[in-house]
């Protein structure tokens, strides 16, 4: 009871990055709350999977190994996780904000009638006093996320209901090995006690999972463009600069919505979170949803013709001017000085 559970997604037989990141965060929270960290892994051919999660600090791994559980389907996974949560009564349940986690977590929240917060950008433990009643709550999970188009940052709590559920996007939490020698307990689930024929009424008839082609997450240098870049043609300049610097090109949501760049390259709350060595923001105003996805970058350069653009306030260098003039010069002087 009262432990922290992390639902771990399996991709090609491996625990997904986002799940390992959540285990790292879960370990931190579990130490704070002095409780155990438990992983839940559902799939097929999972022999030895515990070796992937124990180094990240899991004390227990619950495994359901059944060929019907791969690939992921909503109903069987929801039945098992809901059943397990009813039995184990966790205090916190964490899911990746992926196409799997965002499909699964709300189903579980509805079944258990508990609160769920999507796309958290930070998770903390803290107390709360209800202003009306004066009732005090100890050690709640603060679920922090931008809301209302990024104009506000809300701290959400679930004072009364358990588990406190949250989803977090890939890259938001930092993956850290807790201890290579950390060992835990393996618990094999008897999934059949929660599964019924009605969980298998949806059939996957075809799927082709394409490996992610672009990987802006691991890029050391990112050249990102916003709506202010102005056109798809101007985005070519960003590709030129990224090519020379050995980086990747990314965009804000406004640039994606404007059709300048594809969604896989979107940085921000509803895109990818990145923390490169260098982030060059071109024509990006810097709404909080965007900043949530890049403000951990080591060095930020903002190129903007608006001196008042909010992004300039988190930039280490702000270059005021026209990017069609500035970018070619940056390429020129980079090439001149690396030789």
């Amino acid at each position: 009871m009262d432990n922290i559970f992390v639902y771990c997604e399996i991709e090609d037989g491996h625990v997904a990055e986002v799940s390992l990141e959540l285990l790292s965060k879960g370990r931190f929270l579990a130490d704070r709350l002095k409780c155990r960290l438990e992983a839940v892994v559902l799939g097929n051919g999972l022999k030895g999977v515990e070796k992937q999660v124990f180094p990240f600090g899991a004390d227990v791994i619950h495994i359901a190994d059944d060929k019907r559980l791969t690939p992921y389907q909503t109903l069987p996974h929801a039945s098992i996780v809901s059943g397990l949560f009813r039995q184990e009564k966790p205090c916190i349940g964490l899911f990746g904000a992926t196409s799997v986690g965002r499909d699964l977590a709300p189903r579980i929240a509805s079944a258990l009638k508990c609160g769920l917060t999507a796309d958290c950008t930070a998770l903390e433990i803290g107390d709360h006093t209800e202003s009306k009643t004066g009732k005090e709550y100890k050690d709640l999970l603060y679920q922090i996320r931008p809301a209302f188009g990024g104009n506000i940052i809300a701290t959400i709590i679930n004072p009364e209901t358990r588990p406190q559920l949250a989803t977090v996007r890939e890259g938001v939490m930092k993956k850290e090995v807790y201890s290579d020698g950390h060992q835990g307990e393996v618990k094999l689930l008897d999934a059949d006690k929660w599964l019924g024929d009605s969980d298998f009424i949806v059939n996957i008839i075809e799927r082709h999972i394409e490996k992610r082609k672009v990987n802006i997450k691991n890029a050391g240098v990112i050249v990102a463009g916003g709506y202010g870049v102005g056109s798809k043609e101007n985005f070519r300049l960003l590709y030129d600069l990224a090519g020379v610097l050995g980086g990747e090109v990314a965009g804000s949501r406004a640039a994606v919505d404007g059709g300048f760049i594809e969604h896989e390259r979107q940085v921000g709350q509803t895109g990818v979170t990145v923390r490169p060595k260098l982030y060059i923001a071109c024509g990006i105003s810097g709404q909080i949803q965007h900043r949530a996805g890049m403000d951990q970058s080591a060095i930020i350069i903002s190129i903007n013709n608006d001196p008042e653009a909010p992004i300039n306030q988190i930039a280490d260098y702000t270059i005021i001017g026209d990017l069609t003039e500035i970018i070619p010069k940056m390429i020129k002087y980079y090439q001149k000085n690396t030789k």
Partner: protein
Amino acid sequence: MKGFKIIVLAKQVPDTRNVGKDAMKADGTVNRAALSAIFNPEDLNALELALRIKDNNEGTTVTVLTMGPGRAAEIIREAMYRGADNGYLLTDRKFAGSDTLATSYALSLAVKKLEPFDLVIAGRQAIDGDTAQVGPQVAEKLGLPQVTYAEEIMSVSRGKITVKRRLERGVETVEAPMPLVVTVHSSAPECRPRHAKHTIKFKHARTLGELQDTSEDYLQLRKDRPYLLIEEWGVGDVGADVAQLGLSGSPTKVRKIENVVFTGRESKVLTADDNSLEGLMKELIDNHTLG
């Protein structure tokens, strides 16, 4: 019975994508009045998929269900202009402040009241919260399967639907029994524009609340054309337990709202001249940020 009975769940949202300078009040809170209210974009994609089923299956009806304040009737009319047959507005002060769980509870009761149906279809998420939770939560409360992130409905036949889903890393085609809940991804086809014939037909569609507020006198018109009535349902109409609604029925509470304050780092401001830019690139190379 011919055709299918489809319920589209839609939401009127503040247009958070076009936040202007007057969007924040002097005290730092969001000025909702300054944001225009729009049809949630992915709900329009959902409406389009529903209308395509109607195009190809005679006798299909498309009903729009929305929850919100009185003005949300605007999106029901908008849907009618584009081809929806009728709509229901779930409106009651007791719904105010509902989180996704309480909202899905209210919506699921309203959907049940519209039984029998073949398909409940909604946008994946609304742009004011981006949670993508209400669709799956409604499905769970109805005890129905869900197919999320739909991009295309490949086929519909009696009791069975085939849907192409857009996932992060590819696509998946699933076959599911009806009734079910489908949520629609923004990569689905854009919604068709208003149709002149429908716009003329439904121009005077109103809720009772709107008639009272605006002193419009359409009573005779509505007697002749009952389809002009947009029904309003309150807590009592759907038989909701008030304890599961609004702020008190919502497990999530907002502890704190912070306005976005931009904390400045020490920042160097450069101009676009050659000397500054060469200096910058040298500095980045020298401190090993580049190269």
